[in-house]
Structures are given as structure tokens and as C-alpha cells.
């Protein structure tokens, strides 16, 4: 392949203009038979109009966490009740600025991760190493990259060019958060959408690189099963625990184990996405649990060595590791932890210092070296440490509990206000059950143990874990490892039924483990929709937690349901950076099934998805800035996202007003006429409080203007059925979703007809428009203003 590097500021035409970017774009265009669409390499201004269409339909409702802004030294400023800050900023703009900041941080984190990993993989495998995420079954290998940038990447080296673009956009976005830049909340929101779109490109780069170079499962619906849960770890062996998101060091640990024939003598377990990605590398690795398991696993003393890379690592990991005498190896410059950088030191010296306890931790920025050191240190310290943990025994817990004065302080700092004092009262009487009952609802944050919280310095998190020993032993489940992309073949098979509404919806359940209740709620919600033949996709900590539950037959949902992207399938795509396979499936439906042009054609594809693809994202335990940028990438594609109650702290919702008829018109692309299609989907981003509420909202947010009558009646059937179950009555908005008599679910006909009559419902004149929000897509010219 011949690639000419040239400056894109030479590339200017009637359709588009790009300035100031050095890349190899032209060479890719030559090879990609599809001509570029209108928006290659979009900048912050490119999709402002599209964003405003969405933000007019789904207006922000701001939820300040605090009335103050404290971002610059003219502040603090009180922005409540219409006041402005010293810089002129108002509350709406400040809240939206924080949303942008969060999304930009998230996007930067994935892009930084991608850059680091691609550089490492290029140095190992060469920049010409070919990308392959599914052979001939995944010809659209990089839907986001192609859609946004116009680049069709073929090799690891090509990904570096895409990252140049991503990094440039993120820099501009971050700069917009500076004091004295943007002042309009809707423009901040549009920029947050831009960060989300860019983030999905950045994540896609990460996963493309690792799937290809580390030979992860390639769009395989039958990817293997691995163990998840603390109880699945064999504590008779040395245990290496890896934490974070960047898998190459963990992969290097396994390589060293394998080279030495040690893979059955040492347990390699992980927390967070490094664990998910490690199991895509080898099914001999185990998943100890999600982020919420970090403290409990470390304190259990099971790990003999802890290896951290980047993201979602406790900032106090070194302190915690020291408490259990487990040496810590940091493998990433994002996370030095104050440790000496010993990358250049002789391996024998490092190993000896750690095994002999002279060094509690080191930084090693070379994955292979870190891999060797981790294995040798694990073997060296194993006989000495004797798995010493700091989790109290039953008798100790009872003794501690007698000291509790029921001051409520621990409960008042707990994010889930768990009833710790009550549980301690029972424990003082010898009953540890109430403490153990908190195990699945405790997110493992350790706030209840904070300095000055408990007047008696009781270590409540460890006490909960100590009271849950028998549960932890039983914590042995199965997860299907991340399969990566959705194949083009699958898209062809289900594209029609999804767009028609006959597969009632595609649910993406993703994100962190900041749950408001039991982690099992994820699985309970999802099981309901698997039974209802929705397609369920998942990634990240949510993917683990879905596995950490057994159905009535004693099976994990991964064992009970197929891994195919099809009705009733449970599709684990992988780690956080695998999210673009979910959004990418929606893009591929538009491009492969509906044959919409993919190359640099974002607006049209987003318009298609918003109006036709009944998809909804849910992140029940969303916690991080990355979760916000991931959600934002879905918003710009017009895909609604639901978050759990803690998600209200993202500071704003994007809400439709179904009572305002004027908000729910589309343009019929066939005629140019404006057609009322009802609030479909009703919201773009919403936090809900209970799983019952989420379960009722999910099928409703899968309703789209394009549904056929059969599809609409199927979707309404699920919505109404769940509403009746959880709310005890018919919903009050059915009349907004029934377009013609044929939309009415047959088994509910009488009930619904009665409601329609009462509400003065009339059959729609154009029940099946060719829906678009973009006047330029109207085929009948001369009437494109939608009048």
C-alpha cells in the first residue's frame, strides 16, 4: 500500500474545507471506494446545527450540585437564583461547562489510553501491522472512524493519524472550559456532544488496536466463558492482581507465566477493564470483580502482588497495598503513586528489593519487564505473606460492634446511606446477617472509614466484608468474554427487524459500579428484557455484574442466553473502550442495512439512527467522567441514555416535553411535509431512581417514528405490560404513541380503545412518514422547509 503524507490544508472543495492538519487522509480516500461525504474531520462548529435540533427537542434541565462556581480566583461566585459570576457566567452555562469538562476529561482519558497503547503496540508489532477485528465478517471495521474522519484505517500506524485528529479536537474542547470563553449553555452542550462523538472515535481506536495486535476474540458470539468473583480465585496459589484499563502489562505478565510454564501455578486476576481485556487475551485469567471490589479484594490479602496501569485505580492503592504487605507495581506514567521509577534498573535487583520488603512499590514503564517482575515477586512473597489480610474475623466484628454508639455518622457519609448503625447494633448481639445484607449494596468507597467519621475509628467497610465471608466464598460465576465488534452479517440479519420495530429494542447496559442498590439489579433488569427478546449488549463493570448473578436455574445470564447480536442475545462486547461496538452497531445498521453513505456523513447517519433505530443506553452505576463522554457519544447520534440515581450528579438531564406537541414533528422526506410522530423517543438523557422505573422507561425509549404498525404494537405491548406491573395502572400517554388502530396491541385492544376515546384521540393522517429532522434530506424539492 502506498501512502502519501500531505497537509490537509491543501484539501479544499465546495463541499468541505479542512485546515491545518497533517495526515495521510488523501491516501485513504484513494483506497476507499466511497467518496467522502460532506463532513470529514469535523470541528467544533460543524454539527452545531444538528446539536441544536436535538437540544431544542431535548432541552437541558440543570441540577446544580452546588450553587457556587470555584473555577477561577475571581470566585467563588454564587450563581443561584439568576445571579452571575464575576466573569459574567450564569448557572446554566456553568452547569453545562461542567458537563463539557466532564466529557472532555472522559474523551481525553480514552484518547490518551489509545495513544499510549497504539505506540506500545506499534513498537512491538510495527506500524504496518494489519488491523483485523473479524476478518471477512467485519468489513466495516471502524464505523466511527470512517463516519467522523473519513479515514479507513488499515494498519496500527494508520490509527496514529486518527489520534492526531482526536487529540486536536479534545484540546480545543478543553480550552472552551477556560474562564472567559463560551457563555451560552446550549453551545456548551453542543461542545459536550462533540466531545462524545470524538470519544467514540478514540475508544474505537483503542479496541481496534488491541483486538488486532493481541488477538482478542473477533466478533465471536461464542467467545469463551471465564470465571468472575472473588470466590473463584484459588488462594492456595500466588495471586497477581491487575487493576485498571490498559491491558498490555497484564498481557505481558501472562506471557511471562506461559513462557515459564507457570500458568497453572499462579492465579492472574483483575479488577475493572484490565480484567475484562485480559480475559479476552487469555481465558486462564479471572475477573475478581468490578471497581466496587477493589478495596475488599486488596484488604482480603489474597493478592500477593498488585499491578496497576491507568484509570479507576484507587488513589490510596499504595496505602492499602502496604496494609496487607502486597508489593505494588505501577506500569503507567499516569499513575506514579509517588514510587521510584525503576524501569532502567536490573530486574534481579528490583525483584529482590520487593521480595525482601525493602521496597513497597516501584514504577516499571516497560510492560515486559513489569510482567517478569510481577511473576517473580509473586512467587517470592507468596510463602512469606501467607495471604495476610486485614478483614476482621467474626469475633472481632462482634467486639467492634459493641463499641458503636449509633451516632449515625457512618450512615450520613455513605453514598447509599446504608443502615450501618442498625447493622452494628444487631452485630453487637451476635447477629452478623444485617451487616452481610449490605454486601451487594456497598460500592466499596470506604467513605464510612474516613478520617474523623467514626468516633470509635471502626473500619466499617472491612467489617461488612468480614461479615460476608461465606458469601464471598460462594462468589463464583461465569462471564462470556468480550467478543468485540458486531459482525456485518449479524447487522444484515437484524437490521430490518430493528428498524421496523419488530425486534423491540437494542439495549446497551454499560458503565461503572456506582449502584444505588444491589449490583444484582443490573442482571434482574436485563433478564426481563432478554426474556422479552430485546437484544442486550454490554461492556465494562456492568458486563461483570450481569455475570455475578444466577437465574432460577442456577445459571449466569451468559450461560442462559446466546452471545449473538440477535433477539434474546446477551452480547458482551468487552471493556469500556468496546462501547463503540454498540454505538457502531447502530451506525452499521444505517450504513450496511439501509445503505446510507458512511464516509464523513455523520449528520445523516445520526438522523437515521435517531428516527429509526430503537436503541437505548443504560448505565445504572455511571460514576466516571468517561461514562459521561460515552453517554455523550450516544446523545449526538440521537440515542437516549438512562442513568441510575447517582447519575443525577452529572448535573443535567436532556428532557423531552411530551405535553408540547410542537416538539414532536419530523419532516417526511418523501413530501417535505411536517408530520407529528409523538414523543419518540421521549428523552435523550435522564436519571431515574428505581429499577422498576428504569424497566418501564426502557421499552418506551425504544419507540421510534419509523416503527411499522407491527413493531409499534410490540413495543407498546412491552411498555404497557411493565407499566401495569410496576405502576399498577395503564400509562397516561398511550394516545401519544398510537398512530393508527393497527398500532394497538391486540391483547389490550379494549382497554386501549377506551383510553383513546377518553383522550379524544384521532388517527394520524401520515402514520408512516419517511422521518428526518434534516430539511436537506427531503427528496421533493421546493418544499424543503417542512411547511
Amino acid at each position, binding site marked *: 500500500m502506498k501512502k502519501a503524507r500531505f497537509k490537509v490544508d491543501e484539501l479544499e472543495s465546495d463541499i468541505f474545507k479542512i485546515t491545518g492538519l497533517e495526515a495521510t487522509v488523501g491516501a485513504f480516500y484513494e483506497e476507499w471506494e466511497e467518496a467522502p461525504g460532506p463532513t470529514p474531520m469535523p470541528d467544533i462548529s460543524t454539527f452545531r446545527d444538528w446539536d441544536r435540533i436535538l437540544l431544542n427537542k431535548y432541552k437541558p434541565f*440543570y441540577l446544580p450540585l452546588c450553587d457556587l462556581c470555584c473555577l477561577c480566583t475571581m470566585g467563588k461566585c*454564587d450563581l*443561584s*437564583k439568576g445571579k452571575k459570576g464575576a466573569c459574567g457566567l450564569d448557572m446554566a452555562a456553568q452547569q453545562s461547562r461542567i458537563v463539557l469538562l466532564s466529557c472532555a476529561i472522559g474523551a481525553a482519558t480514552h484518547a490518551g489510553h489509545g495513544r499510549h497503547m497504539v505506540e506500545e503496540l506499534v513498537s512491538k508489532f510495527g506500524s504496518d501491522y494489519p488491523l483485523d477485528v473479524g476478518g471477512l465478517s467485519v468489513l466495516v471495521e471502524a464505523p466511527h472512524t470512517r463516519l467522523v474522519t473519513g479515514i479507513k484505517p488499515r494498519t496500527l500506524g494508520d490509527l496514529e493519524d486518527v489520534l492526531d485528529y482526536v487529540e486536536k479536537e479534545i484540546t480545543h474542547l478543553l480550552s472552551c472550559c477556560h474562564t472567559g470563553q463560551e457563555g451560552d449553555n446550549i453551545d456548551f452542550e453542543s461542545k459536550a456532544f462533540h466531545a462524545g462523538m470524538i470519544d467514540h472515535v478514540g475508544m474505537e481506536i483503542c479496541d481496534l488496536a488491541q483486538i488486532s495486535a493481541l488477538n482478542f476474540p473477533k466478533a465471536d458470539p461464542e467467545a469463551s466463558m471465564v470465571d468472575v468473583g472473588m470466590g473463584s480465585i484459588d488462594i492456595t496459589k500466588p495471586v497477581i492482581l491487575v487493576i485498571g484499563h490498559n491491558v498490555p502489562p497484564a498481557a505481558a505478565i501472562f506471557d511471562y507465566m506461559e513462557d515459564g510454564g507457570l500458568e497453572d501455578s499462579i492465579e492472574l486476576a483483575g479488577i475493572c477493564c484490565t480484567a475484562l481485556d485480559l480475559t479476552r487475551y487469555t481465558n486462564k485469567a479471572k475477573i475478581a470483580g468490578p471497581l466496587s471490589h477493589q478495596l475488599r479484594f486488596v484488604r482480603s490479602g489474597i493478592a500477593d502482588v498488585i499491578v496497576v496501569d491507568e484509570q479507576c485505580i484507587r488513589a490510596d492503592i499504595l496505602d492499602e497495598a502496604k496494609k496487607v504487605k502486597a508489593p505494588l507495581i505501577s506500569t503507567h506514567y499516569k499513575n506514579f503513586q509517588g514510587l521510584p521509577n525503576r524501569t532502567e534498573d536490573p530486574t534481579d535487583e528490583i525483584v529482590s528489593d520487593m521480595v525482601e520488603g525493602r521496597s513497597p512499590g516501584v514504577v516499571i514503564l516497560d510492560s515486559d519487564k513489569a510482567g517478569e517482575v510481577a511473576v517473580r515477586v509473586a512467587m517470592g512473597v507468596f510463602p512469606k505473606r501467607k495471604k495476610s489480610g486485614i478483614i476482621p474475623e467474626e469475633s472481632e466484628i462482634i467486639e467492634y460492634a459493641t463499641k458503636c454508639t449509633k451516632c449515625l455518622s457512618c450512615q*450520613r457519609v455513605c453514598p447509599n446511606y446504608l443502615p450501618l448503625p442498625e447493622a452494628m447494633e444487631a452485630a453487637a448481639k451476635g447477629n452478623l446477617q444485617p451487616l452481610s445484607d449490605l454486601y451487594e449494596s456497598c460500592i466499596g468507597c470506604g467513605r464510612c472509614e474516613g478520617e474523623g467519621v467514626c468516633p470509635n475509628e471502626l473500619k466499617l467497610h472491612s467489617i461488612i466484608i468480614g461479615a460476608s465471608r461465606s458469601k464471598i466464598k460462594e462468589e463464583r460465576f461465569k462471564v462470556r468474554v468480550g467478543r468485540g465488534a458486531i459482525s456485518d452479517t449479524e447487522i444484515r440479519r437484524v437490521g430490518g427487524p430493528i428498524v421496523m420495530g419488530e425486534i423491540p429494542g437494542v439495549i446497551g447496559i454499560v458503565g461503572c459500579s456506582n449502584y444505588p442498590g444491589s449490583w444484582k439489579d443490573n442482571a434482574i433488569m436485563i433478564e426481563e428484557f432478554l426474556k422479552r427478546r430485546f437484544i442486550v449488549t454490554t461492556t465494562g463493570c456492568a458486563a461483570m455484574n450481569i455475570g455475578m448473578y444466577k437465574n432460577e436455574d442456577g445459571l449466569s445470564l451468559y450461560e442462559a442466553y446466546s452471545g449473538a447480536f440477535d433477539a434474546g442475545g446477551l452480547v458482551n462486547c468487552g471493556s469500556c473502550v468496546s462501547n463503540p461496538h454498540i454505538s457502531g452497531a447502530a451506525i452499521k445498521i444505517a450504513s450496511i442495512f439501509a445503505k446510507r453513505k458512511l464516509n464523513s456523513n455523520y449528520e445523516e447517519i445520526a438522523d437515521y439512527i435517531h428516527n429509526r433505530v430503537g436503541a437505548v443506553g443504560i448505565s445504572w452505576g455511571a460514576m466516571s467522567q468517561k461514562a459521561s463522554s460515552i453517554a455523550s457519544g450516544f446523545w449526538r447520534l440521537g440515542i437516549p441514555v438512562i442513568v441510575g440515581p447517582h447519575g443525577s450528579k452529572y448535573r443535567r438531564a436532556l428532557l423531552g416535553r411530551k405535553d408540547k406537541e410542537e416538539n414532536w414533528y419530523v419532516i417526511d422526506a418523501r413530501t417535505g411535509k411536517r408530520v407529528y410522530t409523538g414523543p419518540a423517543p421521549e428523552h435523550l438523557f435522564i436519571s*431515574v431512581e428505581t429499577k422498576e422505573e428504569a424497566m418501564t422507561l426502557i421499552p418506551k425509549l425504544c419507540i421510534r417514528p419509523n416503527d411499522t404498525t407491527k413493531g409499534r404494537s410490540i413495543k407498546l405491548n412491552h411498555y404497557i405490560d411493565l407499566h401495569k406491573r410496576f405502576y399498577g395502572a395503564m400509562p397516561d400517554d398511550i394516545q401519544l404513541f398510537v398512530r393508527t388502530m393497527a398500532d394497538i396491541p391486540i391483547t389490550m385492544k379494549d382497554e386501549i380503545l377506551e383510553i383513546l376515546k377518553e383522550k379524544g384521540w384521532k388517527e394520524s393522517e401520515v402514520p408512516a412518514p419517511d422521518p428526518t429532522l434534516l430539511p436537506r434530506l427531503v427528496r421533493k424539492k421546493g418544499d424543503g422547509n417542512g411547511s
Partner: protein
Amino acid sequence: MAAEPWQRYEVPGPVKAAVIKKPEMVSILLKKAKKPIFIVGHEAAEIDLEGKKPIDQIIRIARAADIPVVTTAHAMAEFLKRGFKPAASMTSMDIGNRLTDPTWSVSGEDEPHDLALILGMTYYVGFVIEAGLKSFAFDHLKTVSLDRYYQPHCNWSFPNLSIEEWSGYLTIIAQEMENK
């Protein structure tokens, strides 16, 4: 006078809700209001209030004062079980958002609401929604938290109460409204 937020770290900023020292104050606010509305979340049906639930007192108050009730999360089912039909059911985000609209009323016909009584949302969700109302509905709507725990972003809130105190406060408000 203000109180301390129940969840320790939910600090609001310089302006905090005035504490309702006597439940009779709520009855006075209700009597003065032109178009009050009651926002009731799922916890109203979950908390045990000396054998009853807060929802039972809410129904008494709503009936006596003829206040429309909007339920959030899945609280509606519990009202229906008790033979009381809420005016509407929507997510807490939705009702918060609508209350920022100075033209909105739950019936769609009446004048907009000028007083919202709030009880039973998840504490930290109520906190941010009330912060939203404080900044985006301040010129047309006053907010009163009847939750057991102090909600600093409202105009008025109960302080942090024991179950017994809370139960007593809600009972007094119900009696006051029934005897008005």
C-alpha cells in the same frame, strides 16, 4: 436558621433552606398558596412510620387541601392501592423540569403552581432537583421539603427528625388541613 444536610457532603452553597420549626407553618404556607402541588417519591411508601407509611399522611393532606399529587419513580402503584388517584406520574427529573416552566400546571388548564411540597425522593436526587428549582424556578415557585431529613436547597425544610417527630409533624399537618 438553617440545619445541616442529612447526607454530610451534600453542601448547597451560601443560601440554605429555612427550617420549619413547627408543622403548623406548612399549613399556613398551604393556605396562602394559590396553586400548590405535592411531589411524592417512592420512599414515601417504603419508610415505616410507626405502623403506617408517609404516603398515608400525604393522602390525608392532599385530600383535605385538594392538592394534586404527582408521583415519581413507581410510587403511583402504592397510591392506587390506597384508592387515591394521583394527578400524574412522571420521573423526578420530568416533574423538576416542568416546574421550571412558569406556564405549566399538572392539569394543563389551571394557573401555574406557586408552591411545591416534596417528599420521598432519593435524598441526593431530591437535593439536586431542588437545586434546579432554586435556580431555575425561583421567580415563580416556592419549595417545601417534608422529608424526614433536611433538604437545604428548598425554601423551607424540616430539620433532620426522628421517625417519631416526623410522624408527629405529618399528622399535625394532616389534622390542620382537615380542620381548616
